């Protein structure tokens, strides 16, 4: 106990935050996996998982146990170091962005004054993981997936940044807490609808979700970059994907949907998290619906769309924003 009291309180706070966030990541992946399968089921007029627990609510827990229990296969002739590094690299950086996201006024692990930049830099490590996994697998399909992921990521980082920049111009800060604070009166989605749309589209592309799921394009590349992975290796990618989705949705909430703002609740500075989560999961629901509705775009169409539509529109948007603010 004495050692703890000698530690700086900030460190203890961070350790707690990391523990909470890691457990939340697992919970989120389980919830998202369940939601995705249930929604997919109902969209397709079938019930989805029904067997484990009431309405299959424990299905993902069981699946997780199964995945953990599976043998970790390392195929011959792969680059062992990179092959093992891939999943870890995909999982680790996704924890970090959650540290700076303000879930409510007082629920934030750490408010960085460059929080937005921190998130952007951390989420882009994910593509590194895909590249490492694809290269290390020594499989042509995996390699295709990796190359696609890199090109896709480069193309979509730019409109994401530009659409964020429009908000930053409005709020005049990079700190997420202050951006939310600036939306006290009016949410930025009303002032920046174009930026919001661009952000959501690029965000879906950034998380490699359908219709932009080219790195794993099932019907073309069997499973893309994670073709060779089994058991925990696969599930870390799975965790990474869902956490990334959560991050993208939370950032959208922070930037455009007024973060924790909503009708006043008791203990508002803490319970704002309710509003925050409602907004995030609404966006996630939307992302899931998209996946189960549209066909996959082709690779060059994806890049064309980014360079011909998203980048010019976001540039125009910034220009207009800047001019209006200056006036």
């Amino acid at each position, binding site marked *: 106990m004495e050692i703890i009291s000698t530690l700086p309180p900030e460190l203890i706070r961070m350790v707690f935050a990391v523990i909470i966030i890691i457990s939340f990541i697992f919970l989120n992946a389980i919830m998202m996996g369940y939601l995705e399968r249930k*929604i997919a089921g*109902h*969209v*397709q*007029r*079938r*019930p989805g998982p*029904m067997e484990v627990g009431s309405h299959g609510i424990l299905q993902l827990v069981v699946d997780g146990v199964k995945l953990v229990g599976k043998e970790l296969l390392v195929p011959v002739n792969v680059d062992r170091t990179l092959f093992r590094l891939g999943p870890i690299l995909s999982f680790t950086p996704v924890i970090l962005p959650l540290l700076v996201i303000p879930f409510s006024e007082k629920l934030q692990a750490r408010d960085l004054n460059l929080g937005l930049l921190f998130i952007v830099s951390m989420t882009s490590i994910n593509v590194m993981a895909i590249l490492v996994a694809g290269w290390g697998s020594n499989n042509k399909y995996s390699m295709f997936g990796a190359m696609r992921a890199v090109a896709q990521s480069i193309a979509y980082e730019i409109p994401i940044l530009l659409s964020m920049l429009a908000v930053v111009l409005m709020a005049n800060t990079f700190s997420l807490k202050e951006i939310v604070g600036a939306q006290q009166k009016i949410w930025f989605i009303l002032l920046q609808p174009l930026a919001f749309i661009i952000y959501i589209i690029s965000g879906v592309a950034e998380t490699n979700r359908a219709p932009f799921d080219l790195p794993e394009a099932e019907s073309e590349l069997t499973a893309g970059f994670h073709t060779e992975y089994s058991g925990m290796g696969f599930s870390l990618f799975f965790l990474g994907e869902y956490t990334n989705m959560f991050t993208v949705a939370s950032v959208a909430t922070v930037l455009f949907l007024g973060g924790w703002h909503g009708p006043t609740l008791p203990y508002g500075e803490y319970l704002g998290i309710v509003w925050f989560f409602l907004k995030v999961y609404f966006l996630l629901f939307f992302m899931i*619906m*998209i996946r*189960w*509705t*549209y066909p996959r775009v082709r690779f060059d169409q994806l890049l064309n769309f980014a360079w*011909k*539509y998203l980048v010019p529109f976001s540039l125009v948007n910034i220009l207009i924003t800047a001019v209006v603010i200056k006036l």
Partner: protein
Amino acid sequence: MKRYFSDLFVGGKSLVDGLVVTLKALCQPMVTVQYPREEIDITPNFRGHIDLVLDPEKNTFRCIACGMCERSCPSECIQIKGKKVEGKKKKTLSLFTLDFTKCSLCGTCVEICPTQALEFSNEYNLAAFSREAFHYDILKRLEERII
């Protein structure tokens, strides 16, 4: 340039339309059933593997062991044997087996039977761990029903 914008607006609208379809489906009732818990009634015309007809009057089979089905079967999956029983003029059926692993359910045997002694069963829940499980003893199946 015109195409550039028309793609954007027409395309955008088509995407919204598509989303409306799936959102509507999300609220509609399911069309599937949870199979082992619920089962859909199967049509009485379903053609499963063959069975011997139980003649309600005689309370036994109608088969006269003529072997027409055995000869007509394209997959040679029926095996039939008759034996002489004392006191009866004709042969009596003593063995009727079906190798269901080979049967292609064409129904030739049922149609060719001169005494209409064969029918299709209605069983479709067929699964087993060994091939031998599908070597049915049709005569035994009938005898079980006689009681």
